């Protein structure tokens, strides 16, 4: 199964960000989207998530997808967490099938148990990203799109988060966007913007 971007162009505030971009995202493959600030990484992910529509070109699903639209497990650039809910609750509310207990079991793999029940506004940047990563992987998805998922993390935290992602992603194509080219992403297919 493949997600195909065909000659996608997008301008923001009159400035072209993506121009005639043609890409394929295939099952079982990981992609690292790298580029400077403003190079279009977030725009590309937003188009894949269905939050932005391209000015020209199209996104096509080739293969046996369950829906005619793309379902995404997403880590947003600015977290998009419900601030007064705990990390556990932020994960369990997005899917009826995920209980608090199941969410807690997953979250404590990346977060200290006593931190998992705190409102997320009390968490550090790295801890918030951990909640976002677990949330993204807790839903069934055709694509995992993660925008700067390791931001604010130490090397040790990043290694743990990366390991968690790889263990839980299954065959779903994974797209990680970021300014930094971390060592863990060396085996990923590179998409420079």
């Amino acid at each position, binding site marked *: 199964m493949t997600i195909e971007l065909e000659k996608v162009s997008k301008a923001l505030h009159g400035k072209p960000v993506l121009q005639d971009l043609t890409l394929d995202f295939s099952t079982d493959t990981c992609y690292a989207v790298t580029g400077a600030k403003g190079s279009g990484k977030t725009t590309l992910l937003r188009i894949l*998530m*269905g*939050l932005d529509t391209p000015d020209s070109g199209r996104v096509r699903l080739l293969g046996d997808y369950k829906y005619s639209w793309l*379902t*995404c497990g*997403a880590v*947003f650039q*600015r*977290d*998009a*967490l*419900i*601030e*007064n*809910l705990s990390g556990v609750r932020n994960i369990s*509310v*997005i*899917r*009826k099938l995920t209980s608090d207990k199941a969410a807690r079991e997953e979250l404590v793999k990346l977060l200290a148990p006593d931190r998992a029940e705190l409102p997320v*506004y009390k968490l550090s940047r790295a801890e918030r990203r951990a909640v976002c990563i677990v*949330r993204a992987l807790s*839903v069934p998805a055709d694509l995992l799109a993660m925008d700067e998922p390791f931001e604010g993390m130490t090397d040790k935290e990043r290694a743990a988060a990366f390991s968690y992602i790889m263990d839980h992603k299954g065959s779903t194509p994974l797209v990680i966007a970021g300014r930094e080219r971390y060592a863990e992403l060396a085996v990923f297919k590179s998409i420079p913007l």
Partner: protein
Amino acid sequence: MNRADGRRFRVDRELKEMAKVFRMPFGTRLLYLYLPALFGHARGAEGTAQQDGGDTEPEVREGDR
């Protein structure tokens, strides 16, 4: 409507986008996003930063269902 009992309320754009991407059911959105926003309880980072001074938008629309 973006007013109820004379109060202005809005849900953070980021939270609305999150709900859209994760396809949160309408009931869950109502419970965790719209009603807390109406009563000023739950906010995303955007709302925490700028409180209630921003624009108001229609929140509960048929298209959200």
